[in-house]
């Protein structure tokens, strides 16, 4: 076996008193060898990012290590002072952060930000620093490195920023790379490229890589070994194949089962009347066409999953259908009425027919209002009498699986998944014909995500809802959509029954998306097992 680069021994980090548990990280031991990718998997709050911070000698907040040792090669990081740690950080251990664009200083050209690493850790001259930075950018397969180096982060795409940040991490040829959810903010095709880049680095440079992720698909794609974390503790560790295909700990099994499969479940054909018929939806911003003539129809009781990468126009589509922005051309008939032609009172009345569940469970609920009041208000706006709306709100809370006590509480008292349930109840209070879910489960952990998807399916069966389900995640689309529409550059390039689109994609872009989806083998394995 190759030499161990990182050895963490019985590491514990205490949380302040009064939290939901005593330790952010509790008695964790792990080893990373040269040329090895070790994945740490866990849901939010599992302590995986805290572990990464600790290995960099930079535990966030006011928390502190209470026990254990961290050895980097022969150096005991836990024995070093802050100035000594500064010489290690960015030099022998480097971090590839979660949100590449946010991790770059918006007012400094990215070339300068890479050069800063050399300024901090070497005695190179300004000219040598600049040459080295350009070299790193070229190594990242970025075309026109000079232009990239001169750019500010806001002038680059997410994928370009991620390559810049990786270049920065590699500047000093560190022994250990820590990648903290490095692809979570990226599109699936970009993600596939970045994962390939990281794998190549391991082969060519032999870094040890500690890769932190919540995505089981990514794990299947990249890991040599897997560690599963839950509530600050390591619950399972082993070779990737073994953990993914034959997990021993119940939590790991739960996590694997919750990851949506790429194979759609069998559907009965939906034969109801059309809830939405949209023709030629177009949106033009100046010289840019955000939406170029989209045709859609959704039947009652049917889910149309719209998939596409950022900038494909899928959110523009949703905003046009709820009349938040005006279409440049086209019509959208909901229950026979063209929503886009309405004005004034007629629009206000008709608006209830299309309701939306938003992406961000924290930003989409007013923190000052009580949950019950929000749902009652949605009902009253849709024309119900206050007493009826109130009775209906209580019913809806039960329908989405929340207790009656929720009625009088404020959003702060609820978790992300519970808030999404509240958002769904609020949308349903208006008795919509069409429910639009715009990335509604993207911000949730897989186990919670699975519950919300179940809830939406269940509600659809009971209420005969038509659902327009917008997502960037093919797996979620596979599980939710009776039909799938694939969007690229503002146009629907392919649409058809889910099983058809996923198994026999006709359009090259759909094929590319499917090829880029991480951990495809895993999907089939889950179905078989």
């Amino acid at each position, binding site marked *: 076996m190759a030499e161990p680069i990182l050895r963490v021994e019985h590491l514990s980090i205490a949380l302040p008193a009064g939290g939901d548990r005593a330790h952010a990280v509790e008695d964790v031991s792990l080893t990373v060898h040269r040329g090895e990718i070790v994945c740490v998997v866990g849901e939010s709050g599992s302590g995986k990012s805290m572990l990464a911070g600790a290995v*960099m000698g*930079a535990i*966030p907040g006011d928390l502190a290590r209470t026990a254990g040792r961290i050895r980097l090669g022969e150096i005991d990081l836990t024995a070093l002072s802050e*100035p000594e740690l*500064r*010489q*290690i*950080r*960015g*030099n022998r251990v*480097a*971090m590839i*952060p*979660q*949100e590449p664009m*946010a*991790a*770059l*200083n*918006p*007012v*400094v050209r990215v070339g300068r930000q890479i050069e*800063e*690493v050399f300024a*901090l*850790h070497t005695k190179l001259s300004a000219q040598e620093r600049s040459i080295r930075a350009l070299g790193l950018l070229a190594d990242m397969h970025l075309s026109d490195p000079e232009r990239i180096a001169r750019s*500010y982060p*806001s*002038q680059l795409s997410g994928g370009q920023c991620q390559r810049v*940040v990786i270049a*920065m991490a590699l500047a000093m040829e560190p022994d250990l790379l820590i990648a903290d959810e490095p692809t979570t903010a990226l599109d699936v095709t970009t993600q596939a490229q970045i994962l390939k880049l990281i794998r190549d680095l391991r082969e060519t440079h032999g870094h040890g890589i500690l890769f932190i992720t919540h995505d089981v698909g990514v794990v299947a794609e990249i890991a040599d070994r897997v560690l599963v974390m839950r509530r600050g503790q390591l619950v399972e560790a082993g070779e990737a194949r073994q953990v993914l295909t034959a997990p021993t700990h119940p939590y790991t099994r739960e996590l694997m089962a919750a990851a949506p499969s790429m194979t759609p479940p069998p559907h009965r054909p939906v034969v109801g009347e059309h809830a939405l018929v949209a023709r030629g939806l177009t949106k033009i911003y100046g010289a*840019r066409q955000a939406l170029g003539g989209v045709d859609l129809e959704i039947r009652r009781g049917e889910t149309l999953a719209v998939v596409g990468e950022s900038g494909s126009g899928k959110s523009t589509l949703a905003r046009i259908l709820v009349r938040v922005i005006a279409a440049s051309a086209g019509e959208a008939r909901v229950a026979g009425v063209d929503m886009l032609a309405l004005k004034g009172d007629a629009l206000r009345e008709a608006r209830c027919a299309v309701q939306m569940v938003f992406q961000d469970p924290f930003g989409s609920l007013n923190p000052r209002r009580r949950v019950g009041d929000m749902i009652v208000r949605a009902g009253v706006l849709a024309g119900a009498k206050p007493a009826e709306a109130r009775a209906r709100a209580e019913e809806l809370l039960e329908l989405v699986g929340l207790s009656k006590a929720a009625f009088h509480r404020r959003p702060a008292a609820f978790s992300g998944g519970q808030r999404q349930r509240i958002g769904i109840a609020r949308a349903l209070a208006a008795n919509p014909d069409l429910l639009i879910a715009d990335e509604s489960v993207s911000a949730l952990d897989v186990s919670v995500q699975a519950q919300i998807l179940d809830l939406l399916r269940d509600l659809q069966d009971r209420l005969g809802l038509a659902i327009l389900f917008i997502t960037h995640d093919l797996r979620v689309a596979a599980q939710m959509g009776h039909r799938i529409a694939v969007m690229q550059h503002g146009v629907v390039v392919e649409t058809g029954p889910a099983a058809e689109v996923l198994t026999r994609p006709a359009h090259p872009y759909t094929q590319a998306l499917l090829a880029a989806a991480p951990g495809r083998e895993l999907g089939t394995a889950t179905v078989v097992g």
Partner: protein
Amino acid sequence: MRETLADLARRLGGLALTMLVVSFLVFLTLEFNVEGVAVKVLGQFSTPDQRQAWLSENGYLDPFAIRYLRWLLDFVRGHWGTSTYYHEDILKLILPRLGASAILAGGGLLVMIPMSLILGVAAGAKEGSALDRSISLVSIITTSIPEFATAVFLSAVFVIGLGWLPGVSTMAAGLSLRELILPVSVLALASTGYIARMTRASMAEVMAQPYIRMARLKGASPARIILAHALRNALITPVTVIMLQIPWILSGVIVVEVFFAYRGFGTLLYQASLNADVYLVEACAMVSVLTVVVSQTIADLIYVRLDPRLSPGGGRHS
């Protein structure tokens, strides 16, 4: 470069348009009622015949639009008329007063900008620390005390009690630094705390950004993190506030100028209003608005220097 020039032209156009709208409102408010103008110019004991004769002689019987355009043209050419109270050419009256106020304002800014930025950055760099709490407390106290109270208090201590400084700042014997100290201190005390708190909030927000943590993970020292990464981002908000303070200092601190009998722009506006000096009020109003729009335009140009995302070509390339 071309984008920058186009941007500058756009800003100057906006500036001119704002001035035009304000000039119309000023003229409408003060000169729509011609009788009122005649009373103010000739005094309330003038006879109706005298007023009528004066009105026709000075073109006041022409339609409103014509009078406005004539006034505007005169204004642009620097013919601002004669003060009815001081009996002097208004332009000649205003310029030295503006100069005096600029000295006072400049002195105030010279003290308040470095002090407030240093205090704000020091407080915001480590939110919740003892230093942060003490700076915030002092800031709140100084901000909450109105200028006239500070002026009285400082005079009581340094003029009456210790006798170190003069109580009036008439500058009778030319520019005197000793006479400037008190009014400048009052101005600085009123604004420093406010700007410091703005800077602190901005700094604290920046220090919580992912790129600050990234700088730390690159191995940067705390001093380098603050100077190379946080400062420029944190300065954007205070720049707005500081530029908003400039017109306030120039025309709004009548209290300070009157208290210390400082012969600046503020006292001039105060006298003009007290004496219903129509033309002087008009001129002072236009000058005040000019300082507001010019300082805000400068503030906009500074933002663009500080934050490349705001520059005309600085957005996404797509």
